[in-house]
C-alpha cells in the first residue's frame, strides 16, 4: 500500500502506439481542422443549452444554470474490457441488495461476524423504520451506480457504490445523442453499442417491483424535490423518456391504504415512486418533521404494502464509505463468489492503527468523509499544501470515525480537448445497474473527466467535465 507514483495509464496510447480501440478516433482528431473543432464545440454547447441540461453547484452561488463542460473526445472501451466490468458491476449490485435485505431482516452477516454490528446499526443511513419489511422482490437499491477508476490495462477499482439515487445518467444519454448528431460519420465507422435502451429498462425495472396490492399496469412516478434542485433537469428528462409523471411532494397525498396524485381528473393512485429525495425528507411523519418536500404518511403506505419506494428507505447503509470496505466480503458471503472488481485499499480512521497511519501519511493519501459525497469535504494529499493538510489532520483527530483514507490512485488518462489540441486528462466511469426482477446494465456509463491538468477530482461540482463513453461491439 505504498503511495509511490506509478506510471499513469493512458487510455489511448501504449507508448507511442495508438491502441486499436482508439484508432478511428485518432484519425478523426487529426483530420479535424481547428476551426471545425471550435465550431463543433460551440454547437455542442448550444445543443446542451437548448435542451436545458444545466447543473447547479451546491453552495457556490453564481449561475444556477451553468453547463457541465462537455468534452467531445469520447472514452472508448473494447468489448473484452467491458465484459469484465459488466460481470463485476452486476455482481456488486446483487451483493449490495442481498446485504440490504439481510441487515433489515435476519442480519446473518452480522451474526456470522463478517461485518461489525455497530457499523451497520449505528450508521446514520441505517433506518430503524425499514426493519422487518421486505420490499417487493426483496430489492432495496434499484439503481446502483458504481464508480470505477482504471489504473492499468486490466486494473479497475471500485471507488464507491451509490445505492440511493445516483445521478448523471441523463448525461450518459445526452452525451451520446449529441455526439451522434454532430459526428454521424464516426458512428458509421466504429461499431458502438447503443445506450438508448436505458429508459425502457428503467421503466421495466420499476414496473417489476410494483406492490402486491397493485393490479394491472402500475402507475409509476418520479418524485423530485423541485425545479430548484441541481438534478431537476435529469428528473424531468427521465420522466419524459419513460412517459411517467414527474411529481413533487405537494402533488401526492395519502388516504386510506394508498398514495394518490392530484390530477385534473381527480386523485389517481400511485404504485411505484422513483424518488430523488433523501430518506430524511420523504415523510415528515416518520423522519424530519420539517420536511416540505415529502409526503406525510408515505412510509406507512409503503410499510403496509400500498406503494413501492425506489430506492427503498434505508438503502443508503450499503453505500456508506465505512461499509464499502466490506463489499468484497458481502460478495463472498451472499453469492459464494470471488469479487470480480477490486476495492481500493482503504484505511478506516475509526480503527486506531489505521488512523495513526493515515495521520502520518496524509500528504500521500486521499481522505474522504464517511458520509460525504460530491467531492466535498475531501483532502487530496499530494495536491494540498501544508496548512491545508494540518487543518485537515485536526478534523480527523477530532472525529476519526467520520473519515476513511485511500492511496492516491494513478487514475487513467484519456485524450481530452484542450487549447492546444488534445492532452491526457484523468477520468473515472460510472455505469448504472438496474435491479428489479432481473439485473440489467446498458453497455456504457458516464465518464467524468478532471479538466484541470493533473487534477484527480472529476466531480462536476469541482470543475469536472463529461465525455461520451463508447463500448465497442464484439
Amino acid at each position, binding site marked *: 500500500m505504498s503511495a509511490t507514483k506509478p506510471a499513469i495509464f493512458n487510455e489511448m496510447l501504449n507508448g507511442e502506439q495508438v491502441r486499436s480501440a482508439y484508432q478511428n478516433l485518432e484519425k478523426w482528431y487529426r483530420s479535424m481542422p481547428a476551426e471545425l473543432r471550435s465550431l463543433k464545440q460551440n454547437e455542442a454547447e448550444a445543443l446542451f443549452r*437548448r435542451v436545458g441540461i444545466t447543473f447547479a453547484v451546491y453552495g457556490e452561488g453564481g449561475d444556477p444554470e451553468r453547463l457541465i463542460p462537455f468534452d467531445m473526445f469520447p472514452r472508448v472501451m473494447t468489448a473484452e474490457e467491458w465484459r469484465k466490468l459488466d460481470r463485476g458491476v452486476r455482481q456488486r449490485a446483487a451483493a449490495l441488495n442481498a446485504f440490504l435485505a439481510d441487515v433489515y431482516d435476519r442480519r446473518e452477516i452480522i451474526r456470522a461476524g463478517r461485518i461489525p454490528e455497530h457499523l451497520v446499526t449505528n450508521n446514520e443511513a441505517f433506518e430503524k423504520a425499514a426493519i422487518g419489511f421486505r420490499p417487493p422482490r426483496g430489492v432495496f437499491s434499484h439503481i446502483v451506480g458504481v464508480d470505477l477508476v482504471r489504473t492499468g490495462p486490466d486494473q479497475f477499482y471500485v471507488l464507491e457504490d451509490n445505492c440511493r439515487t445516483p445521478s448523471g445518467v441523463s448525461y450518459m444519454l445526452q452525451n451520446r445523442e449529441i455526439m451522434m448528431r454532430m459526428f454521424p460519420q464516426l458512428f458509421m465507422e466504429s461499431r458502438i453499442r447503443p445506450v438508448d435502451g436505458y429508459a425502457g429498462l428503467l421503466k421495466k425495472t420499476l414496473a417489476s417491483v410494483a406492490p402486491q396490492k397493485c393490479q394491472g399496469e402500475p402507475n409509476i412516478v418520479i418524485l423530485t424535490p423541485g425545479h430548484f434542485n441541481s438534478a431537476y433537469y435529469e428528473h424531468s428528462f427521465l*420522466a419524459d423518456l419513460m412517459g411517467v409523471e414527474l*411529481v413533487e411532494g405537494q402533488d401526492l397525498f395519502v388516504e386510506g391504504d394508498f398514495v394518490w396524485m392530484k390530477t*385534473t*381528473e381527480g386523485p389517481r393512485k400511485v404504485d411505484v415512486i422513483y424518488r430523488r429525495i433523501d430518506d430524511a425528507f420523504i415523510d415528515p411523519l416518520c423522519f424530519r418533521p420539517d420536511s416540505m418536500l415529502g409526503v406525510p404518511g408515505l412510509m406507512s403506505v409503503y410499510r403496509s404494502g400500498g406503494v413501492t419506494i425506489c430506492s427503498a428507505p434505508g438503502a443508503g447503509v450499503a453505500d456508506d464509505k465505512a461499509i464499502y470496505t466490506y463489499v468484497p466480503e458481502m460478495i463472498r458471503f451472499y453469492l459464494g463468489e470471488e469479487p470480480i472488481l477490486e476495492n481500493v485499499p482503504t484505511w478506516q480512521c475509526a480503527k486506531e492503527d489505521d488512523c495513526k497511519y493515515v495521520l502520518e501519511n496524509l500528504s500521500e493519501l486521499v481522505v474522504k468523509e464517511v458520509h460525504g459525497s460530491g467531492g466535498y469535504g475531501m483532502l487530496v494529499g499530494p495536491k494540498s499544501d501544508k496548512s491545508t493538510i494540518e487543518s485537515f489532520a485536526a478534523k480527523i483527530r477530532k472525529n476519526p470515525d467520520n473519515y476513511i483514507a485511500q492511496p492516491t490512485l494513478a487514475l487513467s488518462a484519456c485524450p481530452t480537448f484542450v487549447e492546444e489540441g488534445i492532452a491526457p486528462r484523468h477520468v473515472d466511469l460510472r455505469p448504472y445497474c438496474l435491479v428489479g426482477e432481473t439485473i440489467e446494465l446498458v453497455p456504457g456509463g458516464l465518464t467524468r473527466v478532471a479538466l484541470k491538468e493533473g487534477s484527480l477530482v472529476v466531480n462536476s461540482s469541482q470543475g469536472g467535465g463529461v465525455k461520451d463513453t463508447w463500448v465497442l461491439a464484439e
Partner: protein
Amino acid sequence: MLSRTAEHLYWMARYIERTETTARLLEVGARNALLPNATGGYRNDWEAVLLAKGTLEPFLEKYRETNQRNIETWLFFDSDNPSSVYSCLSAARENARVVRTALTAPVWDAINGSFQELQQLHRTERSKLMVTDLTEWTLRACQLIRGAFMSTQLRNDGYDFSGIGTTIERADNTARLIDVKYYVLLPTVNYVGSGLDQSQWALLLQSMTAQRAFNWSYQGEITAAKIAHLLILNRRFPRSLRACVQWYCEHLDNLAESYQTATAAQEVAHKLLDDLRAATVEEIFEEGLHEFLARFMSRNAEVATTVHEVYLSGMPT
C-alpha cells in the same frame, strides 16, 4: 394530467398575456407623450398607465419622479414591479421550466430564447434602447411564443388549460383597460363626449391594436357606444370580453368532453357567456359602465377560482 402541471401551463399563459398587456400600455403611454397638449401634458397619462396596472404607489415610493425614463424602467425592466415585462416574462419562463416536458421544443425555445434576449436587453446600455424597440420586441416575443404553442402543441388538456389561462387573463386586462379609461381618466362626468374624451377613447383603441378593427366594423365617428360594443360585445374582436369568454368556454367544453364529465367550471363560464350574448350596449350604459365592468371582473375571477377548485387543486370537494 397532474394538477400542478395544468396549473403551471395555465399560469405560463396568463403571464405571457400579462407581459403583452404591460408592453401595450407602455407603448400607448409613450406614444401619447409625443402628443403635446393632448391631455394636459404627459404626466397624468403616465400616472393613469401605472394606475391601470395598480402599481402607481410602489412606483412613486421607489422613483418619486414620474418621468418617462423612470416609468420605462419600472414597466419594462424592474423586477420589483411584479407586472413589469421582465417580471412577467421570467414568471412565464419559470412556470414553463417546471413543466418543461409538457411543452414542445419550439415552445420552450421560444420562451427560453425570448428570456435570454430580454436579459441581453437588460445588459444593453439604456441610451441605446428606444422605447418602441422594447415594446415591439415584447409584442413579437409574445406572438412568437403563442404561435409556437398553437402550431406545435398537442391539442390535449394541457392545451386547453393554457388557453383558459390566456383568455381569462385577457378578459381581465381588457375589462381593466376600459375601466381605467372610463373611471380613472375621467375625473368628472362632464368630460364624457368631450374632445378630451374622444382622444382618450382613441388611445384605448390604440392600446389594443383595435383602430383598424374599429374602422372595419363600425361606420362613422368614434363614439363611446361603438367602442364599448367592440371591446365588450363584439365576438369577432379577439380581445373583446365576449370573445375571451367564448374562447374559454370552448376550452372548458373540450375538457368536459375529454374527461367525460362537466363540472361547475363549465356552468359558471357558460352562464357568463349567455349573459354577454344577451347584453346590449344600452343596458350596459344604463347599469353604468364601471359597475358593469366590476361585475364582469368579479364573475371572470369566479370562473378562474372555479377552474382552480375543480381542476387545479387535484382534490375537488
